């Protein structure tokens, strides 16, 4: 079967030999090319012209899709329902936001050469230590990976070591993001408090308000999604991926055949957190702001809904779900904002009760094999 024909290959090469991944990458590439062409080649006012606003919107969806893939990696394959992935997303976003803040330089309202506006406003004398280095792109981009990764490492180490799993883990992750939200709301934290970081001007020297930069960010999000997808696919098709599924379905048994389950969990959790961080870093320049609301438990749990709707343990389902829900949100909040929460709440119920396999389960050619209905250990 397909699995065993690819199992002899180099692990990172395996996804390219999978039909599903080929289709996914093809569709993604086609979407990137079409949007770019329609945006650049067609004149403004043409019926098929994709305007800068829409490109920006699509770019946002793609970064959400990457976030959803990260959540699916831990939830679908490891059985860890993280209700705190928004925290990793937000931290990645803050790392990027700090870089963008430092890029403003003297053009801020107060014109201070080093301090961002909000620090001048709070009468701070100098930059807090953790803001140093963020004027350099390479450092900030490294932090986009390392900061969420480190948080996931410490948190995951503590959680997995003491075998906190199931709903307990979900609750604790929710508490984590809640605690971070409270912390980031404080002005003393040095991240702009309530207002967060905003008024960005440029990234790597490109003006953030120009439509070319927006197109560039859109394409960057698409590429990041493709790379993240391939990495996750490579992980889940490796033997390690099968250990993850084994852990998901029978943790104790996996331990008894000699795998240090907590290390595998930790590894995948950290990878997932880093991907979420990248998604956040791509999201922030496209929306132009990062504030503590990204830490809200509601957002984190919404991500899980995207994955559930798309179909967990498929990865491409997560992408579908993220785009569908966010498109619906854009439409709904424009037309009747009050109904959105009803729709969202209803989706939660409908998907879990009626559509446990999500949209992906409805697609033709959906194989039961590796994605056999996950069995969860009760808490």
């Amino acid at each position: 079967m397909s699995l065993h024909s690819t199992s002899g290959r180099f692990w990172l090469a395996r996804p390219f030999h999978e039909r599903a991944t080929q289709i996914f990458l093809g569709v993604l590439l086609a979407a990137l090319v079409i949007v770019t062409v329609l945006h650049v080649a067609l004149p403004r006012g043409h019926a098929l012209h994709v305007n800068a606003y829409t490109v920006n919107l699509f770019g946002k969806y793609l970064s959400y899709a990457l976030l959803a893939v990260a959540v699916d990696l831990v939830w679908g394959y490891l059985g860890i329902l993280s209700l705190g992935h928004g925290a990793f997303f937000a931290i990645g976003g803050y790392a990027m936001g700090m870089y963008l803040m430092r890029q403003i330089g003297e053009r801020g309202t107060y014109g201070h050469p080093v301090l961002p506006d909000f620090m001048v406003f709070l009468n701070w004398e100098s930059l807090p230590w953790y803001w140093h280095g963020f004027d350099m792109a390479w450092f900030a981009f490294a932090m986009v990976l390392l900061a969420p990764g480190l948080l996931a490492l410490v948190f995951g180490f503590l959680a997995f070591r003491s075998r906190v799993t199931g709903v307990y883990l979900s609750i604790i992750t929710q508490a984590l993001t809640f605690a971070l939200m409270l912390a980031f709301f404080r002005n003393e934290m040095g991240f702009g408090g309530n207002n967060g970081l905003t008024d960005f001007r440029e990234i790597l020297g490109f003006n953030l308000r120009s439509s070319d930069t927006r197109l560039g960010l859109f394409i960057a999000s698409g590429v990041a999604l493709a790379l993240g997808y391939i990495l996750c696919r490579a992980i889940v098709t490796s033997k390690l991926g099968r250990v993850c599924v084994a852990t998901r379905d029978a943790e104790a048994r996996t331990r008894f055949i000699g795998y240090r389950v907590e290390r595998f969990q930790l590894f995948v959790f950290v990878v997932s957190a880093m991907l979420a961080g990248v998604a956040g870093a791509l999201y922030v320049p496209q929306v132009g702001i990062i504030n503590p609301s990204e830490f809200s438990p509601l957002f984190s749990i919404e991500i899980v809904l995207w994955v559930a709707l798309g179909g967990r343990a498929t990865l491409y389902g997560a992408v579908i779900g993220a785009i569908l829900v966010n498109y619906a949100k854009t439409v709904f909040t424009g037309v009747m904002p009050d109904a959105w929460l009803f729709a969202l709440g209803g989706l939660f119920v409908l998907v879990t009760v009626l559509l446990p396999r999500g949209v992906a389960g409805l697609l033709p050619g959906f194989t039961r094999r590796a994605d056999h209905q996950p069995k969860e250990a009760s808490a």
Partner: protein
Amino acid sequence: MRRFLFWALLCLLAGFLPSAAAQTAAPGSDPGAALLETLDVDSYRDKGEAITAIVQSDDERAREWLQALLDGRLQRADDGRFVVVLDNAGRNWPVEDALTGEALGEMSRRELDRIGINNALRNQLRSAIAVVDLISPDVERRRSSADRLLGEVDEALAETLVPVIEEAEDDYVRRRLGQALAIYQAENGEMAGVEALSGSLHPRARVALNRAASGDDPVVADAARAALASVEQNLKLNRGVETLYFGLSLGSVLVLAAIGLAITFGVMGVINMAHGELMMLGAYTTWMMQQLLPGQPGLALVLSIPAGFLVAALVGIAIERGVIQFLKGRPLETLLATFGISLILQQLVRTVISPLNRTVITPEWMSGSLVINDALSLTLNRLYVMGFALFVFAALMLVMRRTRLGLEVRAVTQNRAMARAMGIRATRVDILTFALGSGVAGLAGVALSQLTNVGPNLGQNYIIDSFMVVVFGGVGNLWGTLVAGLSLGVINQVLEPWAGAVLAKIIVLVFIILFIQKRPRGLFPQKGRAAEG
């Protein structure tokens, strides 16, 4: 006795007032009329004498006049009658005759002329009223009068107080007057006063001691400093007790919020994210009851207890039948689905009622506070909520330990398959358990409506905290929930003063995450093979 006191006080007043009053009562008429007449003069000095005269007159209405004068409500109508204004809001004021107490209907403010006073007179009036009150037959009045004298004693009053203290029947009055005297003495650098004030909690006592500490006599100053230190010590102790009280109060709210959750989670393994919204429904039920029974907030609150339970329990049953039963054995999906329900319920309240907070009235018997001493008073509503939490806890314990339902619930918790095999209808137990857990959430909401704003987000604010309580306490153990809830409440309040509310919350969360390292199954874990599930 009372007579003696009265005369003693009269002498005192005569002593410190500018001069003895001149009695100019017109024979045959009400002597009171003459007394009041003397008040309507221009000179404040003369008014002072008139006040003294009124005090000495032994007239029953004296206190009322003095109070009205102090409040600016003693006025003279255009027809020359003295009246007391009952309510001086608006244009026309209801008045009564100052002499006869007869209601005179409403009078226009233009027809009335106020008898003015100045600050000196105001002070004199306060002391005079206190003195009159000290001999009042009403104990409460004597006590509050003694309270008012703290820090207001001067030389003349001090002398008179000595016999009064000795004669006072009421312990409280005696102690208070003693304190008042001691404050006067300490302010004047007298050793006796300083010694008496050691450990006293009244703010005026501290002011007096501070003054004594900077006085000329080094011996007294030292003693004052020592006394101050003991006051500080005492204050610290009282603040500790207060923190503990607030902590226990917060803790009992957490227990109320978490205990229903502990039941549904412990028995069914179901994480009900809509638990907070069930609390919210309980709180809104209270509000609704008060709307239905206007003017009887107390009765409405009492009726809300069963009503809140029922409303939440019915909604809980609907959730169980409508959603949760289809997700058996899939706890994570249950969590997501119930979260969806919580969003719907919140939005429903926002749409149907209002996105704004509603006010729930606190009935009279629950407002106010229990005064322990000058530095410590316990608000009654919190005390009631604490008692209510304990009551709910005890009732649940009884249900679980002593009833058939409790037995079946425990059986299902421990071994579902076996319980079914023995003829327990597990589905029915599930429904009842969920109804019970939800109903308790409703009760928590009723209690919360007395402490915080009732709004659509009420539940959301408590849900994470209550999960923390359940995780901390250990699943399936009501005692664990009680201990965990109370201790988290206390920890939170202890941390708050030096860490701030937000940081305290964060510290508690981190603490729980670390705690789980040591004891993954909480404070009171279920042991043995049953726990492996």
